[in-house]
Every structure is written in structure tokens, then in C-alpha cells.
């Protein structure tokens, strides 16, 4: 129990004295916010820059697409095209990405899940099709509810039944 107490005191000390990044070596694995997405040179556009990576907003009402957040759903449903190779998949496909203060989007990340949110394999063609749809969305704008100088961490969740797009959730 003395060890527990010592660890506890140490944690209180470091969190009480620090504000941002100077906690301890083991804290280097933590993002400023868990919703942030770090640059990956293998997949991301080198030209894409965040305006201030320390002040990312994760508010779900931070962005609109051509003036309305409801346009995201319509835009995705309109261009989704079912092909037979998608049919084996039912579940969720979530795409997360960053939109910077200039309303440019990049750093797309995708995860595929079963109805209980456990990870599940998905045909590559379906993943690529949805990724291309999200990458092609144009007209992101900061909503009036957020500071336009902030970068935004955004996600879209696709509900898929037998390879067909049922719902687009944000």
C-alpha cells in the first residue's frame, strides 16, 4: 500500500505542477486530445498543415458542408455505389480526419467494426470506396458555433447492411 500511496502522490505532483507537455517520459504517448490525428508520412499529404495542433476542437457541431451539417449524409448517400464484393460486410465503418483552419481536409483514418463496435474485417474495395467518397467531399466550413481559427477533428460513421449504405452518422 505504501507503493500505491507513493505512486499516487507522484501523479498528483506531476499533474498539479504541469499544464501541457512536461509530465514525464511515459506521457509522450498521450496526445493533447485523444481525438487528434498525428501526421503519417506513408499516407498523409505532406503539404497539409494544422494551424495550431495544440488547440484542436472535437465538437461534433464544428463543421458544416456547404452550409449545413445534414449535407454530409446526402452527399455520401448520393455517390455510394453498391457492388457485389461489398455484400459480405455488415457493421460500422468509421472514418476520422482533420480539417484545418483553412477548411482543408486530410489525415484520413478508417476503422471497421461489428454491431457491438468490436473490430471486424471488411472488403478492401468497400473501405476504399468510402474513403474516396469522404476525401472527395468539398465545401467544409467552420460553423458559427466555433472559433474559425481552430483545427477540427471530425468523424463520420457509416452503417452498412449487406454491403449497402444505410445511414451516415456524425
Amino acid at each position, binding site marked *: *500500500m505504501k507503493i*500505491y*500511496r507513493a*505512486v*499516487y502522490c507522484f*501523479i*498528483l505532483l506531476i*499533474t498539479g505542477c*504541469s499544464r*501541457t*507537455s512536461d*509530465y514525464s517520459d511515459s*506521457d509522450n504517448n*498521450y*496526445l*493533447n*486530445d*485523444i*481525438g487528434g490525428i498525428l501526421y503519417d508520412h506513408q499516407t498523409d499529404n505532406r503539404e497539409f498543415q494544422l494551424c495550431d495542433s495544440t488547440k484542436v476542437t*472535437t465538437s*461534433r457541431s464544428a463543421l458544416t458542408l456547404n452550409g*449545413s451539417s*445534414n449535407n454530409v449524409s446526402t452527399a455520401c448517400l448520393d455517390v455510394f455505389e453498391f457492388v457485389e464484393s461489398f455484400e459480405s460486410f455488415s457493421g*460500422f465503418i*468509421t472514418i*476520422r480526419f482533420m480539417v484545418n483552419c483553412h477548411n482543408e481536409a486530410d489525415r484520413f483514418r478508417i*476503422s471497421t*467494426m461489428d*454491431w*457491438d*463496435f*468490436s*473490430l471486424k474485417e471488411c472488403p478492401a474495395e468497400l473501405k476504399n470506396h468510402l474513403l474516396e467518397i469522404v476525401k472527395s467531399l468539398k465545401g467544409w466550413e467552420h460553423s458559427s458555433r466555433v472559433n474559425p481559427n481552430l483545427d477540427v*477533428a471530425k*468523424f*463520420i*460513421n457509416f*452503417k452498412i447492411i449487406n454491403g449497402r449504405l*444505410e*445511414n451516415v*452518422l456524425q
Partner: protein
Amino acid sequence: MYCNKCLHCVLFIFYVNVSFSQGNCLFYPEDSGERLACELSYRAISYKQGSRTSQVLFDAAIKLGPEYAYAYYEKSVPFFKRGLFNEGIQLLNKAVALEPENYLCYRAYWFFSQRSYEQCANDLELYYNTLGMPTGSTPGGDMEMRMLLGMSYARLHKLSEAIELVSSAINNYEEMNYFIGPYDYHVMGLLYFENNEFNKAKKAFYSQIEMNPNFADSYYYMALIAKSETNFQLASDFLRTSLDKFEGANGGFSFNGFIDWNVYRELVEKEFMTFDVGIDLD
């Protein structure tokens, strides 16, 4: 009458706070892992959800008190809000395994919000039928969880069960020492509407409007019913009122917790346009 309503509101908010709050750390023995985890979690929630500091503190809490369910639950919340569902559910599953009576409702809420209706229904059947819990509520306290179970049943093609469940809940709240929720009559109306029982739906929506005349969504569904009865002028009047409420006129508002049955301003406008009555939408 007014005082009565106030008292109900205060008691309801108190109930929700108690249901979703952390609890008293003094319940745990001094120097136990749970006590330390509890104290660290209190500290963690004073920082921004999902921030580095709060995550460091929750991880320390989980390390010191791995049986302390609240730390897993509270750590999971920002993951769900940021679309990190798999990461969130792994944490929340641990909280549910430790204290199902306290965290099943929250897991069901997230399944419902992402339209995973079978998972939502499974969790709530476990909560009410197996554990025998009397009531539960959504995190914001807007709805008793039977409303979500009813709507899930409706999407799982079990409309009769849904209607029976919700009407029985509304009729038995008093017996359960619970209160009619701010949207219960509306949910009742939605289910009757879905089942094409328009007279019963109207009665429920009128009860909702009587309880809160500023709620935009019920007017929209009343308009759809009037339209189905070919009473186009009345339908147009309801849509106009709904739009006014969406504008915030006289305290008007909407609520988007019904997921598949959510009403948006654009939806009301689109319906309004079908009447071609020449009313300026601006």
C-alpha cells in the same frame, strides 16, 4: 401546480446526477486501490474530457484500482464522442462487467445513438428483465431508457411490444416513484404513428404539446397525420408552427435524441414546400 412541476424537475435532475455521478470515495477502505482510483478520478474529471491530463490520471486510477468501474466508464466517454468507438467500447465493457447495474444504460445509449438496435435492446433487456432494475435514464436525463428500448423494438420489427412497453411505462411511472419524462408522450406518438394508429398518435402528440407547447417535433408529426387525413390546411398550419418553433420563437426548440425519428428544419421545410401554399419560408 407550478411548484409541483419545479419540484419534479429538481428531483429528476437530482436522480440523474446520482445515477451518473462518481459516488463517495469514503465508501472505500483507506489506502485501498479503489479509494485511490476514486480520488484520482475526481481529479481527472476536473480537466477537459479527452485531454492528456485527464487520460494520464484515468490510466493511473485504473492501474491503482483495477476493480473501480467508474474510471473505465468515464475514460471511455470522450472516445465515443470522437468516433473512436472500438477504443471506447473496450473500456466501457470493463465497467459493465464490474457494475452492470450502473453502466448498462450508458452502453445501450451509445448502441442506440449509432442505430445498433439489437445491441441496445439486449443491454436493456438485461438491465430490466435479468437485473430487475426499476428505471434508468439517458446520460442527459432526457428519457427513461424504456423509451430507447421501445424505439429499438420498433426498428427490430417488434412494434406491438414497443407500444406495450412504452404505454405501460407511462402508466406505471407513479407506481415506480418516477416522473413522466419531457419526451415520453412524443415517443408514444411516434410508435403509434409508425403503427398507423393515427388517432392514438394524435392523442399522444396532443398530450406532449399540452405538456410543452414549444417542442417543434410533435407539430411536424401532427402535420403528417393531418396530411394523411387530407386535411391540408391543418397540416400546413402545423408545419408553420413547427418551423416557428425551430426558429426559437417563444422558447421553441427541437431535440435530436430520437435518432431515426429526428426532425430537422430542412425536413419540415421540404414537407412544407409540397403544399405550395405560397407562404414565404423566410
